[in-house]
């Protein structure tokens, strides 16, 4: 009457691990797509100017961004088409920059603070008036290292 054969060994059966790699691959693709999209919600349109003498921004943690340009189409009904400044995810005025810089500086490590850099992403058709106002505000906030963000020009013809 030995209908039920006793399993040999009697231990826990081994788990099939082949699906685990699939799950991890799914994670992999998820992170790959997410990390490239991570950026601020752009509320202004920024078409960067072209230049040839570029330097790369080295340490991302030391860089603060300021965007200047016309509001995006969705926001244009509310904000008009006047050139605006964007700090983080909000529209701002020139007077807000000093507070913003101070706040960003405060969130950095103390030994990093002197190396703080401000990247100015400014639309190429912006008038210099607003750019100069921003520059004066940055001087007052002691954020003296700035970087005019621009794209590489392919052809060197002027």
């Amino acid at each position, binding site marked *: 009457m030995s209908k039920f054969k006793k399993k040999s060994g009697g231990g826990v059966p081994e788990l099939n*691990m*082949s699906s*685990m*790699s699939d799950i*991890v*691959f799914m*994670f*992999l693709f998820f*992170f*790959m797509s997410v*990390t*490239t999209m*991570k*950026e601020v919600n752009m509320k202004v349109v920024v078409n960067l*100017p*072209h*230049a*040839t*003498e*570029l*330097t*790369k*921004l080295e340490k*991302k943690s030391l*860089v603060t961004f300021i965007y200047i340009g016309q509001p995006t189409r969705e926001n244009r009904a509310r904000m008009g088409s006047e050139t605006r400044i964007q700090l983080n995810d909000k529209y701002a005025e020139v007077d807000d920059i000093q507070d913003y810089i101070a706040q960003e500086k405060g969130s950095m490590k103390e030994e990093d603070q002197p190396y703080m*850099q401000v*990247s*100015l992403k*400014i*639309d*190429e*058709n*912006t*008038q*210099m*008036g607003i*750019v*100069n106002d921003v*520059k*004066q505000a*940055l*001087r*007052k906030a*002691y954020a*003296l*290292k*700035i*970087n*005019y*963000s*621009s*794209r*590489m020009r392919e052809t060197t013809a*002027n």
Partner: protein
Amino acid sequence: MGTVKKLPQPNTSSTADIAFLLLIFFLLTTTMDTDSGITRKLPPPVDEDVEQKVEERNTLVVLVSYDNRIMCKGREIELWELKDIAKEFIDNPANDPKLPKKVPVTIDFFGEVEITKPHVISLQNDRATKYWRYMDVQNELIAAYNELREELSQKTFGKTYADLDEARQKAVAAYYPQKISEAEPKTYN
């Protein structure tokens, strides 16, 4: 002999480890689009505008008007002319009395040399100047400095500036110190 021999299943548990490795690699290496641009240093704030006395021969005024035209040395110039004007001004190879004064300075690797240390390029613009024009001009001025440094590096060390070690790069940079003053805006008509 009639029994079908079962093939042994390959051990797949390591694929998960490989995938994890890839995952960590991508997590560390993916950066948001690399940012590059023209790096400048602003002067520290001053209480009141103290007009620094600079001799006329030591300054090169580059003016960008509201309609994006460039004025330099009392005449209107094209963008492509600017680099050569700036290079001649910074270097002053012929020791022209109209171009910046040369002063003796001691620099590592070069010894005592005469350079145009007191020169200043003053970049002035109107409030209505377009940003792209301003960037064009900045770009040309920085290109002038970079070309001079490159030439000097080739002449003295026989290598490109980017290939020099840090101390030599510093010395070459000290030979042609970058002095671009971004003045406060004025309204011209």
